[in-house]
């Protein structure tokens, strides 16, 4: 049979056996629910922050009511106000005094920041170079891209590694190789798992979009649209690269127990972008480097696009670098895979696997 239909058959089996695993379906369901819940809760919380309850007297009611988002309870005197604060029926009380502003704020343990700042007098502030994005939003988006990349790449990377070792351990591989070539088998595995990983990414992107629309966060959505599409494109090739490496590393061992000894370095490569983007999402130099290194580009480049730091041509250059590394990884990976697949027993040494 021709190689391309054999590749599809192998890919189909990989997808089918994963879709039949209850663990996989349940964990994917939970992941999607968490993503949806996160966006919905975030959206509703930012739209309807809970009102602060404040006890006031007739002298202070006018000033406090003018503040945004407070709920006032009128009391007669200081004694009654303190009682409400102590019983935590209100978060704060605002009472008249003889100071410069004319109010005293009473609270139980901490000064209520929004009330204090609302009642304070501030100098006017002029910022010459304002930040383009809200730092908190930037942080969450960074975690979002980092986590999705990390989860999807490690889940499906581990899947492909296990499936390679399973075939080796059970010797199915000897039966398979008497009908198809090692390269066909490898291609089918990489394609099958890439399809699954991409399906998960697309599902997450769709849920994020729906969530943002439902919660009316159109501004975030407009800013995030292009980066999400780039993320998907970068993820596609980044994952193919990782999958080839995972398969090659796994083919060097013969038992499930030994899988960690060769795939750990790749696991590190998958974790690196996640930690880097969390610690350095406000560091343009680190982000720029990340956006060009093939392993971290799927996280680094969309991040830079989101904050508006990347020029229009930058993702294209980075994608070209990623594609070249992808081809190199497939060539090296296929060689290691072909040379190690039939060597049973002890771990195959990397030098031997490369030499043949």
């Amino acid at each position, binding site marked *: 049979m021709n190689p391309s239909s054999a590749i599809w*058959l192998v890919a189909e089996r990989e997808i089918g056996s994963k879709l039949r695993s209850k663990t996989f379906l349940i964990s994917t369901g939970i992941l999607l629910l968490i993503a949806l819940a996160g966006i919905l809760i975030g959206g509703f919380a930012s739209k309807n922050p809970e009102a602060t309850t404040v006890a006031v007297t007739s002298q202070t009611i006018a000033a406090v009511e003018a503040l945004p988002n407070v709920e006032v309870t009128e009391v007669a005197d200081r004694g009654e106000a303190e009682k409400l604060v102590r019983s935590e029926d209100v978060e704060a009380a605002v009472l008249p005094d003889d100071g410069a502003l004319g109010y005293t704020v009473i609270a139980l343990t901490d000064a209520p920041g929004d009330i204090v700042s609302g009642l304070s007098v501030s100098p006017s502030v002029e910022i010459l170079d304002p930040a383009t994005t809200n730092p908190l939003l930037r942080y969450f988006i960074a975690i979002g891209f980092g986590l999705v990349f990390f989860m999807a790449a490690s889940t499906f990377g581990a899947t492909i590694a296990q499936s390679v070792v399973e075939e080796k351990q059970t010797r199915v591989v000897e039966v398979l190789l008497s009908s198809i070539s090692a390269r066909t088998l490898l291609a089918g595995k990489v394609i099958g798992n890439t399809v699954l990983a991409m399906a998960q990414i697309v599902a997450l992107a769709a849920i994020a979009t729906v969530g943002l629309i439902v919660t009316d966060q159109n501004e975030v959505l407009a800013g995030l649209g292009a980066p999400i599409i780039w993320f998907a494109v970068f993820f596609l090739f980044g994952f193919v690269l990782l999958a080839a490496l995972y398969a090659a590393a796994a083919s060097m061992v013969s038992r499930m127990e030994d899988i960690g000894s060769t795939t750990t370095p790749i696991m590190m490569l998958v974790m690196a972008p996640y930690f880097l983007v969390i610690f350095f999402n406000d560091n343009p130099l680190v982000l720029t480097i990340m956006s060009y290194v093939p392993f971290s580009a799927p996280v680094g480049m969309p991040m830079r696009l989101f904050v508006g730091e990347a020029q229009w041509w930058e993702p294209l250059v980075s994608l070209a670098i990623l594609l070249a590394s992808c081809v190199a990884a497939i060539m090296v990976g296929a060689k290691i895979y072909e040379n190690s697949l039939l060597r049973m027993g002890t771990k195959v040494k990397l030098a031997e696997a490369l030499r043949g």
Partner: protein
Amino acid sequence: MTTGKLELSGITKSYGSRRVLDDVSFQVAPGRLTGFVGGNGAGKTTTMRIVLGLLSADGGQVELDGSPLTAEDRRHFGYMPEERGLYPKMKVLEQIVYLARLHGFSKADAAARATALLTELGLDARLNDTIESLSLGNQQRAQIAASLVHDPEVLILDEPFSGLDPLAVDVVAGVLQASAAKGAAILFSSHQLDVVERLCDDLVILAGGTIRAAGSRDALRAEHAGDRYELVSAGDAGWLRTEPGVTVLDFEGGYALFEAESAETAQRVLRAAVDRGDVASFAPKHPSLAQIFKEVIQ
């Protein structure tokens, strides 16, 4: 089916400084079952893996119909590895269908073939069970189905009978004979010499990495038959000990096992025996495969 003769010539293989195969040459003819016997570590599995291209030989060649084996030829091979290998979590039918499709059969053809073959092997009630839920004997039947489902021209089976009960041995033997009748060249290894003896047409005996005997079963038997005869008669057979040209190996009452120096001597003994009383049986004594095996691997 376009079948050809599989021929190995001068195969050598070493692992480091240890030579495991030395000038191994034999043939596997289409339409015949060739038994491959040898002690543990004799090199049977290594030889089979070389034929399948899973290992490369250091020297010598494997030819099919007179031309060197190609990857394309091997697509028409069926293989059952020594250590059984199928996906543990896949269903029996699905698995065999998958392998048939990898060999190029359409989905419908693959399903029809797999179902028929599994039914023939007695697994029709287990088609939708996972491999890991089957008993070892049934896993083995599934494994045999995996090697046969694409009607291979050449079948290489490493220990197809190990672990099977006598009834299952008969079922599997029947399937292999049917496949040979359709023209496949079949090479199978086994330690169960009685099964090999009953089943095979040709025989290859390997010991210490070298071929000790190869040829048709009947020719090998005749070659190792020697000049032994068995006589069962009514009277006492003690007189045989004084016959010229006769060496008595064993005797008890009317039974005697003896070696005659020529066929004429044997005929003379028979006539003499008939003169002395009723002869119940008189026949040349063929050695069993186990005896031949022990003899040639010494």
